[in-house]
């Protein structure tokens, strides 16, 4: 993640004074991070694009509440994450309501979500890993996405999640354990049997 810089500080001041044009600095800098994080959390391209844009709009409307000494991205990440979690909950609720009592699959198991089509340079193993990531709990998927897809350090993840580094390492441990289990179950053996 880029560190806070003078350009962001100036843009933030202008945004607070009601200039939407100044917000372009933040959008250009973080739009790809926002899209890929949302994609990792909700598993659908269209939803990810829409949610990431909505997060920027909400960030602009609330930028007056961001303390001047705080960095933009961790704050923005909270908005994006909350939107994605809220979206997932609505999706689960609608899915449960529509099936009304039948055994309903997790959203990640539904065909439109965590489809391997979004994986670059696809092969069987990459497809499986992506689909297994989709089956993780939200909080475990989140740390995997931030670490592996955003290449964030533990310190940056801790800042974005408003927790300490110990919590990050602990979540990563359990997330990877679970991912390993999911991949091994699908294969019928341990991770070491994989090519």
């Amino acid at each position, binding site marked *: 993640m880029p560190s806070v810089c003078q350009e962001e500080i100036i843009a933030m001041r202008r945004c607070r004074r009601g200039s*939407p*044009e100044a*917000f*372009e600095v933040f*959008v*250009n800098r973080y*739009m*790809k991070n926002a899209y*890929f994080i949302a*994609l*990792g959390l909700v598993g659908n391209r269209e939803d990810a*694009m829409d949610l990431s*844009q909505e997060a*920027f*709009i*909400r960030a*602009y*409307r*609330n930028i007056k*509440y*961001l*303390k001047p000494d*705080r960095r933009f991205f961790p*704050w923005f990440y*909270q*908005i994006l*994450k*909350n939107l994605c*979690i*809220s979206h997932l*909950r*609505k999706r689960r*609720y609608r899915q449960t309501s529509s099936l009304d009592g039948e055994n309903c699959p997790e959203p990640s198991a539904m065909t439109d979500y965590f489809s391997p089509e*979004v*994986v*670059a340079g696809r092969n069987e*193993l*990459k497809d499986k*890993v*992506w689909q297994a*990531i989709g089956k993780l709990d939200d909080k475990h998927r989140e740390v*995997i996405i931030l*670490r*592996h*897809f955003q290449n964030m*350090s*533990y310190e940056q993840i801790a800042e974005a999640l*408003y927790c300490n580094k110990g919590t990050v*390492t*602990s979540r*990563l*441990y359990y997330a*990877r354990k679970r*991912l*390993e289990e999911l*991949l091994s179950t699908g294969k019928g053996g*341990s*991770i*070491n049997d*994989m090519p």
Partner: protein
Amino acid sequence: MTCHDYKDLMMGYLDNELSDEQRRQFEEHLAGCSECKDELEEFRKLKAITDEVTLVEPEDRIWQDYWDGIYNRIERSVGWIVFSVAAILLTIYGGFKLIEELIKDETIGMLLKIGLLVLIVGLAILFVSVLRERLYFWQRDRYKNVRR
């Protein structure tokens, strides 16, 4: 310390996030613990295959239009709010007026009156249902207060 206590250090070791002292401490433990050594090897393999997964980047055109989409939505949002409030108020007013006229008008047949009234009631139920759903999510949304 038990093997379980080393799990945090194992993650840090795997992701190159340890200080020299922590690294030395973990390597010392690893030298005498085959269980942790095996677990680390499995995690290494998992990390390697997970790192290989990259996601398809949307076309350049999407990124070029990205800011325009946000800017337009910011600009239009105020207009939409005013428009929506006015539309709701006018619809409610119109609905009441229509019901009033229907009841008073003796030239309209009873069946048509009932049909129109049922239509209005149906629309009202749909509106209340959507409103209730929104309220339900809003009240139970633990994340509604974004931490700043």
